[in-house]
């Protein structure tokens, strides 16, 4: 067996030494519970699995030019990122319960927490959540605990995938969920303020929102706080290279999907949820937290801290049930952000915005293609209406080698003609031009 070290010889020796037979090992299990052996394929050699999986990989169309986003983006990943994250010492370790022999993981997580705070301009962050959706859900639960209230107001400009997840998770909880309809692509102030009352625990919004539109929630933060509610903002970390931060807007909890920070799209995961908040709320925050402290000799070191919030100590009273999270993805983001650095992230964000606005100009120049919303302030994603069924149009462009965008009819009724188009720094002027030509051709 490839992944079993002991030889038959050694097994015999060991059994002899402890005076057992192979059958004894399982004698504590009632006979009738044994199965008759599994119907699984014959073991494959490494050579065979590589052949088999190369064949399956070949059945996935990864050569389409992607203008597909929806919260998950095709950003450039520097080669040094996987090289470093791929070091065995990182990925074959587990949760750093033993700090003295886990300083590598611990310091990296501490740096991650710090970078998330610096990106969002918040005071505290945790070691990671599963993804952007569960992070937003956990933020909502956290707000319920903090406020002791049970009403939540969420605008439908928040990623619909996250919204349906939250609906699933809250199905058995006595939570009053008010979902407001966006106002021309932006969080709907009118309806939100109407719903916001002193039973409200939190207001959930996103920036840039699912439509790519940019907003400033300073007003909502003030309004929420006035009612004793919290403002929760879900954000797209790359955009924070240039955009006003949730911290600056007065948000109380900030979450987001970190996939864009160096993780491949990998058909949906593993990704990276992150969460940041104000220091005063840390004890209500879910997930691992790494703190800086010292040893007896005064040497600075890092360790898991505030564990009394967690399931392994508080059990049913824990702030969350999360245990394994996305540590390696957090490391990936940390290395990615270190490589790009202050200026690199700013330039990358600017490039995304520039290329998106170029795409906007090229595409809206096509007869019949018009922006769906009035607000012309978007980051790197936009909603354009096309003549006819958007899903149809996308289908036709796939044959031309383009994943031209995401048809919104799936999540928003009345938007059958609307296409959500994302542009990252990887897209070239030429690709954008080609998309415009092909789109015009298929209309």
């Amino acid at each position, binding site marked *: 067996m*490839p*992944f079993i*070290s002991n030889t038959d010889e*050694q*097994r015999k020796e060991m059994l002899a030494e402890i*005076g057992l037979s192979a059958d004894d090992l399982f004698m*504590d*299990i009632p006979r009738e*519970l044994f199965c008759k052996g599994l119907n699984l394929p014959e*073991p*494959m050699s490494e050579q065979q699995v590589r052949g088999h999986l190369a064949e*399956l990989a070949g059945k*996935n169309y990864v050569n389409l030019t992607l203008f597909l986003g929806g919260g*998950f983006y095709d950003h450039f990943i520097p080669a*040094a990122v996987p090289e*470093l994250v791929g070091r065995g*010492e*990182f*990925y*074959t*370790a587990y*949760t750093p319960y033993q700090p*003295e*022999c886990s300083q*590598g993981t611990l310091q990296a997580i*501490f*740096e991650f*927490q710090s970078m998330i705070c610096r990106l969002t301009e918040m005071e*505290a962050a945790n070691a*990671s959540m599963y993804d952007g959706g*569960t992070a937003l859900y956990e933020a909502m639960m956290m707000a319920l605990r903090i406020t002791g209230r049970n009403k939540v107001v969420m605008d439908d400009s928040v990623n619909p*995938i996250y919204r349906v*997840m939250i609906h699933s998770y809250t199905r058995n909880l006595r939570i009053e969920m008010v979902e407001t309809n966006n106002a021309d692509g932006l969080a709907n102030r009118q309806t939100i303020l109407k719903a916001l009352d002193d039973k409200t625990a939190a207001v959930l919004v996103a920036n840039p929102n699912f439509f790519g539109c940019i907003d400033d929630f300073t007003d909502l933060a003030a309004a929420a706080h006035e009612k004793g509610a919290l403002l929760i903002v879900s954000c797209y970390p790359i955009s924070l290279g240039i*955009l006003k931060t949730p911290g600056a807007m007065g948000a109380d909890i900030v979450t987001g999907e970190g996939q864009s920070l160096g993780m*491949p*799209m990998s*058909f949906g995961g593993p990704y990276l949820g992150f969460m940041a908040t104000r220091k005063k709320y840390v004890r209500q925050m879910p997930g691992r937290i790494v703190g800086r*402290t010292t040893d007896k000799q005064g*040497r600075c070191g890092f*360790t898991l*801290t505030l564990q009394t919030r967690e399931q*392994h100590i*508080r059990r049913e009273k824990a702030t969350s*049930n*999360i*245990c394994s*999270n996305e540590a*390696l993805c957090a*490391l990936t983001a*940390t290395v990615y*952000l270190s490589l790009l650095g*202050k*200026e690199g*992230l*700013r330039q990358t964000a600017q490039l995304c915005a*520039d*290329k998106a606005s*170029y795409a906007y100009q090229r595409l809206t120049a096509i007869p019949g293609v018009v922006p769906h919303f009035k607000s012309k302030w978007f980051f790197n994603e936009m909603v354009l209406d096309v003549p006819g069924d958007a899903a149809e149009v*996308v289908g036709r462009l796939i044959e031309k080698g383009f994943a031209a965008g*995401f048809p919104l009819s799936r999540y928003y009724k009345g938007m059958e003609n609307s296409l959500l188009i994302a542009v990252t720094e990887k897209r070239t002027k030429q690709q954008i031009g080609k998309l415009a030509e092909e789109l015009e051709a298929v209309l």
Partner: protein
Amino acid sequence: MKLVFEKSVAGRMGLRITKSDVPTGIHLRDDLLRERPAALPELSELDVVRHYTALSRLNFGVDTHFYPLGSCTMKYNPKVCERIARYPGFAHLHPLLPQLRLGGMLTQGALQVLYEMDLMLREICGMAAFTMQPMAGAHGELTGIMMMAAYHRDRGGKKTTVLIPDSAHGTNPASAAIAGYTVRTVPSDTSGLMSIEALGKMLTDEVAGVMLTCPNTLGLFNPWVKQICELVHGVDGLAYYDGANLNAIAGRVRPGDIGFDIVHLNLHKTFGTPHGGGGPGAGPVGVCEKLLPYLPVSVVVKRQDGTFALEYDRPKSIGYIAPFYGNFAVILKAYIYILMLGREGLERVSENAVLNANYIKEKLKAYYDLPYPQICKHECVLSASRQAEHGIHALDIAKALIDMGFHPPTMYFPSIVKESLMIEPTECESKETMDAFIEAMIEIAKKAETDPDSIKAAPISTPVGRLDETAAARNMDIADL
């Protein structure tokens, strides 16, 4: 070691960003922009490579050390799995593609992996179907309990309570609680198993289900497990199987055959995917026939023409619990792992995992208290209470092991054993490695009597010694701003 921020030098850059080929500097409204760029470090690529290479070298990992962390199944992670997960055909696949018109045809390879993984896990666990979406074990628990709730809701029953043995992992009660259930704890009997009388008494009509880990966190297999499932079914409850310890019985006993209705697995434990310093993992959940309608959407199905597709129209589904199809790259690695083991492989896995655990248990029982002397499964739990009499606690033993080149076992869990040391060698480790570990443990036991101070001083070989955890909690220095 210095923080990455402390190594930053103003104006330094690690990556050249491609020059823009479009009109640049489009102007977004000033009030929508941040005032100053994010205070990220400014480093060269060399700086970054040295910093994180150096950090990696401060870690113990399976690639560098024996890592018998109980309940975590720290197997060797085959390099081929890492390699294949990097194939562009998988890594560059956007998750929304299959949701486009005819998009399913663009991702047949990935869908086949998910579909076949479901089939293989069904076979291994004896369940009717699996969802691959949960992103870790605890997430699987929550998903399972949500299905439990949906099932009961559907049948109009008003179930309020979930029963969980005191030896259970903390995620079990936490998961049941956030799903909206009241958690009641079932005590263990003197043999370390969940007390059947106690259970009997607690099994009322409010009980939605019981969460069981079998073998449990003491590494003990409960011979009454079938009867327990029947008891639970007796009050119209569901039996939940925490599969984190499946490695002990893989290929031999199937939770579904025993009578469990819901099973979650930890692919990062039983199926050899990396633990990543604390994830990402994957926690697929399997259910019995009657729970099929409640599986999360989407579900991968195979059409008559042999192609694969995603099914969303499932009215009774608990809905989305993940943005897409789960931690695909992790599932992919586990899929490869299972293909490489095949049927016989899985049986060898459990045989060797159990043999290794019993070998360590028998070799050490003369030196450490062994609260439950019977045959164990994949892990054994010792107690340092004998050493505690000399002031040497489980923690001290753990630290001494670090200096001797071993990652410590799990300490102080399960809490029903005082001074517990939970040792899980896994099938991957060799007799030589375990003998070295056993020797170290024996030496420590002796030192505990002859020279306790040297143990109290440990670790001395690490970049830092024992850290002041209370100060950490008090100061809350959790970010460098």
